[in-house]
């Protein structure tokens, strides 16, 4: 099963979301990455 391709740059994701017209799931974590 494919892993989720998590982005790490919120601003880049915001720009990408606007272009792609796609919502963002923003996950704030303290778990080891």
């Amino acid at each position, binding site marked *: *099963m*494919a*892993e*989720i*391709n*998590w*982005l*790490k*740059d*919120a601003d880049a*994701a*915001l720009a*990408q*979301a*606007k272009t*792609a*017209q*796609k*919502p*963002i*799931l*923003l*996950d*704030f*974590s*303290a*778990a080891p*990455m």
Partner: protein
Amino acid sequence: MRQFVSENFLPVKIHIKEQPKTFERFKAQWTPTQLILDSEGVERHRMEGFFPLEDFLAQLELGLAKLSFQKLQYREAEKHFRSLCQTYPASGAAPEACYWAGVSAYKVTNKPEPLGEAAKLLKEKYPDSEWTRKASVWLH
């Protein structure tokens, strides 16, 4: 879960030790916190604390439903709310989704019947829910 996330969202993970300012910027005060932002960056749904998988998936569906509802896309919103009710009936989000499914259907039809149906369903399936109390005004 992975497929649902990848198909419906641009997933972004922010670690508190790596990006504390991003936590402040989005007012995340606890972990885990997940936000659903629309394509313009407006927050539409906030999840705070851990959710077991079924509840987490229900919360994601609830977020998509709210996103459509707040954009006045009531048919799409109803579809997501009803999907949540039917797929995750034991989740904490289900009563809220059943309530808003009725409201969405009312917004589409401008007829009161969907509100009454939602109230009956809530009373039957979730008698102790606050959403059942909110919907009680729709029962005649």
